[in-house]
């Protein structure tokens, strides 16, 4: 009971500290409002505004019809070039694709000779090159069919494939981006706030003050973790309601309370990481470098910027230790697939467990850092 009381009062103190600092409040607002909107609304389709050049040595109605079908928002208006020009332009990164038609392309097509057009793609961006090439093939073939037979779909094939996307039928990229961006902001702020609260207390010498009172390190550390969780969770809920659901119009398929509860569990794990970094670092400079070293994998390997399943096995095992990976899996399931507790409990358990592990490690370092700070 006394412990709970202690933690309660300490959390109050931490909250006053964070909210009393206007710079922090501005940075929190920036993260959860502006940054989420910037990132989510910035998300286009994988192939979007792709610059394309056409090397047309045929100049027939067919090739012009194909060129006219390469339209925004997927492609920019095609630029006519010679083969050499196109190669150089691709080197400079000005174009992503170059589509070349040989002489007599249309005539050969009418004659049933099945002529071959060439597509050159800049494969330094692998997924864009691949998807774009697929799109262009579909466009070329359907325009050719339409040109020759008047029916762009051609004869009905024997075996048809009916493809549908579940959970986001129109493939609106903003939905997923909004969620992963929210996760990025959660991670960055929680880790940095908790760790900095710890370091600041050490640098100002107030930690000694706490340590000569009848308080245990657990209470001191826990109160900082809880205070950060409260601040960031409130910001998260606000961002979810007003920015993600409100401005960005992202529907939440599952239970919103469950999503918030999961966020709370994730915050616990992230704050524990922050606490660990805060006790590990001896100066603000070291802390800052540690935060960057942790936040890059947290953001880039959790599945928001490339599927976890595609990672090599070893890296997949390593990223199991990233709570952000489990949170993203959880958030995708609840927000988009409408999953319930019965589905997502393993992720919740994993996040909570990781939090306990990080928090325990930071407590072990706490005493050590106390004696080193003197």
């Amino acid at each position, binding site marked *: 009971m006394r412990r709970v009381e202690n933690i309660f009062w300490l959390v109050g103190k931490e909250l006053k500290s964070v909210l009393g600092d206007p710079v922090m409040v501005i940075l929190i607002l920036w993260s959860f409002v502006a940054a989420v909107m*910037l990132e989510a609304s910035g998300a286009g389709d994988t192939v979007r505004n792709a610059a394309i050049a056409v090397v047309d040595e045929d100049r027939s109605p067919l090739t012009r019809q194909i060129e006219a079908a390469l339209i925004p928002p997927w492609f920019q208006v095609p630029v006519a070039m010679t083969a050499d020009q196109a190669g150089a332009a691709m080197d400079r990164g000005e174009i992503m694709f170059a589509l070349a038609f040989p002489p007599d392309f249309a005539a050969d097509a009418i004659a049933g000779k099945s002529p071959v057009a060439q597509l050159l793609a800049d494969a330094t961006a692998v*997924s864009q090159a691949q998807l774009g090439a697929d799109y262009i093939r579909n466009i070329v073939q359907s325009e050719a069919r339409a040109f020759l037979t008047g029916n762009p779909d051609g004869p009905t094939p024997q075996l048809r494939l009916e493809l549908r996307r*579940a959970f986001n039928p129109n493939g609106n990229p903003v939905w997923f981006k909004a969620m992963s961006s929210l996760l990025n902001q959660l991670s960055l702020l929680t880790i*940095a706030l908790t760790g900095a609260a710890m370091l600041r207390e050490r640098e100002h010498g107030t930690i000694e003050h706490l340590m000569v009172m009848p308080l245990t390190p657990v209470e001191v550390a826990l109160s900082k973790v809880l205070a950060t969780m409260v601040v960031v969770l409130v910001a998260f809920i606000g961002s979810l309601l007003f920015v993600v659901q409100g401005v960005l119009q992202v529907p939440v398929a599952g239970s919103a309370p469950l999503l918030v509860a999961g966020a709370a569990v994730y915050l616990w794990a992230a704050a524990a990481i922050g606490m660990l970094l805060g006790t590990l670092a001896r*100066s603000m400079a070291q802390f800052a*470098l540690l935060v960057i*070293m942790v936040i890059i994998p947290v953001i880039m390997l959790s599945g928001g910027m490339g599927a976890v399943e595609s990672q090599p096995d070893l890296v997949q095992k390593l990223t199991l230790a990233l709570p952000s990976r489990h949170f993203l899996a959880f958030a995708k399931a609840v927000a988009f697939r409408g999953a319930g507790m019965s589905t997502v409990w393993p992720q919740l358990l994993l996040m909570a467990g990781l939090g306990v592990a990080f928090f325990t490690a930071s407590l072990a370092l706490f005493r050590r850092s106390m004696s080193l700070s003197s």
Partner: protein
Amino acid sequence: MTTQMMTGQTEPVAQLGQVSHRFGKVKALEDLTLVLPAGRMIGLIGPDGVGKSTLMGLIAGAKRLQQGTVRTLGGSMADARHRTAIGGRIAYMPQGLGRNLYHDLSLRENLEFFGKLFGLGRAERATRIDRLTRATGLHPFLDRPAGKLSGGMKQKLGLCSALIHDPDFLLLDEPTTGVDPLSRRQFWDLIDAIRADRPQMSVLVSTAYMEEAARFDHLVAMNAGRVLAEASPADLMVQTETTSIGAAYVALLQADNDMAPNDSPTADAFASATDPVVPAEQPTAPPPPEEPAIRARDLTRRFGDFTAVDKVNFDIARGEIFGFLGSNGCGKTTTMKMLTGLLPATEGEAWIFGSPVDAQDPQARRRVGFMSQAFSLYGELSVRENLLLHARLFHLGRARTDQRMLDLVPRFELEEHLDQRADTLPLGLRQRLSLAVAVIHEPEILILDEPTSGVDPQARDDFWKLLLDLSRNDRVTIFVSTHFMDEAMRCDRISLMHAGKVLVTDRPDAIIASRQAPSLEEAFIAYISAEIPPEPASAAVLASTSDSDGNASGFSLRRLLAYTTREAMQVRRDPVRLAFAFLGTAMLLLIMSFGISQEVRNMPFAALDQDHSPESRAYLSTFEDSHWFLTRAPILDPTALKQRMASGELTLAFQIPPGFGADLRRGIGAEVAALIDGADTTRAGTVESYVQGNHASVVANAGGAAPALAMLAQANPEPVQLISRFRYNPAMESLPSIGPSIPPLLLLLFPAILMAVSVAREKEIGTITNFYVTPTGRAEFLIGKQLVYIGITLLNFAILTALVVLALGVPLRGDPLVLLLAALLYSVAATGFGLLVSIMSSTQVTAVFASTILSVMPTLQFSGMMTPVSSLEGPARILGNLWPTTWYMAVSVGTFTKGLGLADLSGALMRLAVFGPVFTGLAILTLRKQEK
């Protein structure tokens, strides 16, 4: 008028006219007018917070003038040209022990740096450093880091730094606060010797030790931002009919307060308090034999090979006031921390009321109250909140908390300030609040670490009355450390500590008697002198032999490089930071390059095959054989399909209707349904394209892969074909595309943060004063520091490039020189961004937050790393184009993967080149050459 002032000895060294200065709402100086005669030693006396430091900062040009006129050395300090011109003639030593020194650098390195700032040549520096350090006795310690010097030695080093360029005007802000009596005496002897040698030099000193003020030629007594009186020490005492400067000051203060009535103590009470010989209160009778409140036996603490506390023993009786004296760094604080359980003892043991000090026992801490050296309450909380927080953490309960508040608030005179933020209180009040907090739970023992350092005499007297009250009336045992002899005299017993050892423990009068000294101070000096070898102080050779050209104005490469050298040395002294920077980036490069994959592999899929015909199995087997897909257990019914998709177990599900095979065989045609998990849109797009591709190839190669599907052979194939070639990365591997795009991320984030912290740290620690008061230009300061981080970034670039080529096996096909050029431009941009952020932030915390939060998103998301900038939408795309990573990414990927050279990349290079100068230029323009 001006002509007259410019000639002759009568020209004042500084003149202030109607100067007012405020910090936010707090007024530091109010309509102050003052003329300081040249060639004299002028003392500025007055309590903490009356505006002494502000006044000195204004005269030295370190602080920006807000209102009024300040003329120093014959020119207006509002004029930047004049400040630059006389920068080399002024030396300013700010308040705080070694506050403008670089603690991680050695004595020699510190002095070398200051010499370079004032344009001294190598030989000149060597002779002057040699002469100054010999004269001050610091010569044997030239290679010791400044941070490891004692307080007195730090101040001597500060003095050497100030004197290195033979200034005409020396400003010393509380140079002896926190220094032991012997060092203090040596310091003043040194100043006297210097003045004897260079009589034309003017000296302005502020001090909290009234005894010292008697040595000065001329005194200026200040209170509440105004001048109370100015005269020679003798005249001042005559005017006020007092016998000591301390008493004179109090009399002046009282006369001043009489106009604005206040409840200040009588001059008599103060005079007795400051009287060095007669204790104000007689110690109580020897304590009755009982369990000592505090007992220490052979208490020892070592940090590495440095012994901070060496076998300390003492017994302190209940209700006793026990004083602890000694210079800074002699081990007082460490001893106190061991007694509170903050630090474990290396050897020996300590007991509180007979039970061993156990850091793990929270209940034992209820009996102890602790007040640490620096103000360590929460500045952002109000006085009331601070008190209540501590009451609650000690679980006093509501009733007792109310009663304690009712008792303590009037007793400590905090009523008027209850709702004020603690960090806005003047020092004296803060200390009272600290004490109130330390006693709120009515502890039986109070441990106070230099509670009155920097507090004015009157506030100190009030403070000690509270202590005596607690000791005599509440029988609280008080263990207190102090630098003040008058306070030591009020203790029952005192210990003198030096270099980790207790030299003597006894009653103050007994200690005086044991050395037959006239005062406690003399007795202590005698004790300490016996411990250390006499210093060869030959101040006669202090003055320089040649005249230096101190007023170097205009841009100086030497000064710029002085900052570079210094910063580089400091960075080298922090190997952990460098290791983080180099090993951290290397590790991240490897993990990220292997970890991020643009390929979609091993996508789990399953099928609900309601047909189970050879045809359906043949169709599905073409997916099972692909390395893109990973087969999971078959789906049994439509509900299971929904569930397994919802759980995220499956990314792709097929449904093959009954009669599929039969329909195909009959030639009516059949349909397969595929459902893709669309939650992750990018991945869904890729999966979709794979499924379509696989489906198309099944149809096109009918029978090839699955003989059962031979009937699909198309009657009329596509009228035209499209052959795709993937340039630069024909195998479509992730590594050649990801590998070269990771260094651009790391080479921005790490240098930006290192740089941002570096300037903010100088602001927080106070070494930025060296930039304010020396002739250093803004560009010299910033670019000088920046060069170091540009160097680090380039080294890091070399390491990362080698790793990409050797460890990731991505060949560098293009021109390495172009990549190097881009890295150089990029490093200027990254560090320039760090500079800009750090100039906007006042603390390291803000610098860290602002630089991380502002740079992580554009660097990771908008720079073309995963999504080409051209595919971004709206503001994100604009931001991407306005961020240097985008352009360096283009060069990095261009040279590595595309094998490009200068001609192809000149556009990106030119854009990249803009960022560095713009960021750095903005930083230089925004940086203030003076403090607010």
